[in-house]
């Protein structure tokens, strides 16, 4: 995850930590033609479902297929949005409310490209990545997450 390759995709056991983030940031600074980093973090929200609170999400994935699909999304971001680099980390297993479950970092030459490229990657992976979230509720029941 923290190499100097312009593309990476990693499944991370449990919540994504600020350490993961700074490591990734540091790995990109060698590109002196990149003026803009756009980063998105997804955090598990303590939503209410039928009067019960979401306490955590338990993520599972089709890992092999995810790797193939994410690589395609990355390739398209390089081509269509002039991305210099695309890095994605997604949690697997349990992530508590208030913890980070997703990180997308895109670098580009200029800021407007980077906004568009980051949003593009996030929207596509939400739709296309074979990952499932099981929302664990305060009364020990659960509910399968549905993406809108």
């Amino acid at each position, binding site marked *: 995850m923290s190499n100097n390759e312009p593309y990476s995709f990693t499944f991370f056991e449990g919540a994504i930590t600020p350490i993961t983030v700074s490591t990734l940031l540091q790995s990109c600074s060698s590109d002196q033609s990149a003026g803009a980093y756009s980063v998105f973090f997804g955090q598990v929200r303590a939503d209410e479902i039928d009067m019960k609170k979401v306490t955590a999400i338990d993520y599972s994935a*089709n890992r092999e297929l995810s790797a193939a699909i994410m690589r395609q999304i990355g390739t398209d971001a390089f081509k269509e949005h002039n991305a210099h680099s695309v890095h994605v980390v997604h949690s697997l297993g349990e992530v508590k409310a208030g913890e980070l479950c*997703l990180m997308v970092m895109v670098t580009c030459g200029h800021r407007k490209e980077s906004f568009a490229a980051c949003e593009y990657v996030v929207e596509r992976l*939400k739709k296309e*990545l074979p990952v*499932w*979230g099981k929302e664990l509720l305060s009364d020990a029941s659960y509910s399968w997450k549905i*993406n809108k």
Partner: protein
Amino acid sequence: MTNVNVTFYGVLAELAQKPSISLHGVSDTDELKQQLLQQYPDMAKHNFIVAVNNQLINKNTSITNGDQIAVMPPFSGG
């Protein structure tokens, strides 16, 4: 006769009560779905997304002996 491995994900793994099964004698993905619904009637409530050997398929696709098949509910990552 074809013999394939079918892996379930998300709520479908829960309904199958196991992560994967072997299926015999299904020649295409439509037949596969029929057989799964017969075996697990509760799966009828869910949309299936099917991948054959890590290729998503969106129309009926023939199945060859040894294929790896993933049967997935709608995605909800992020």
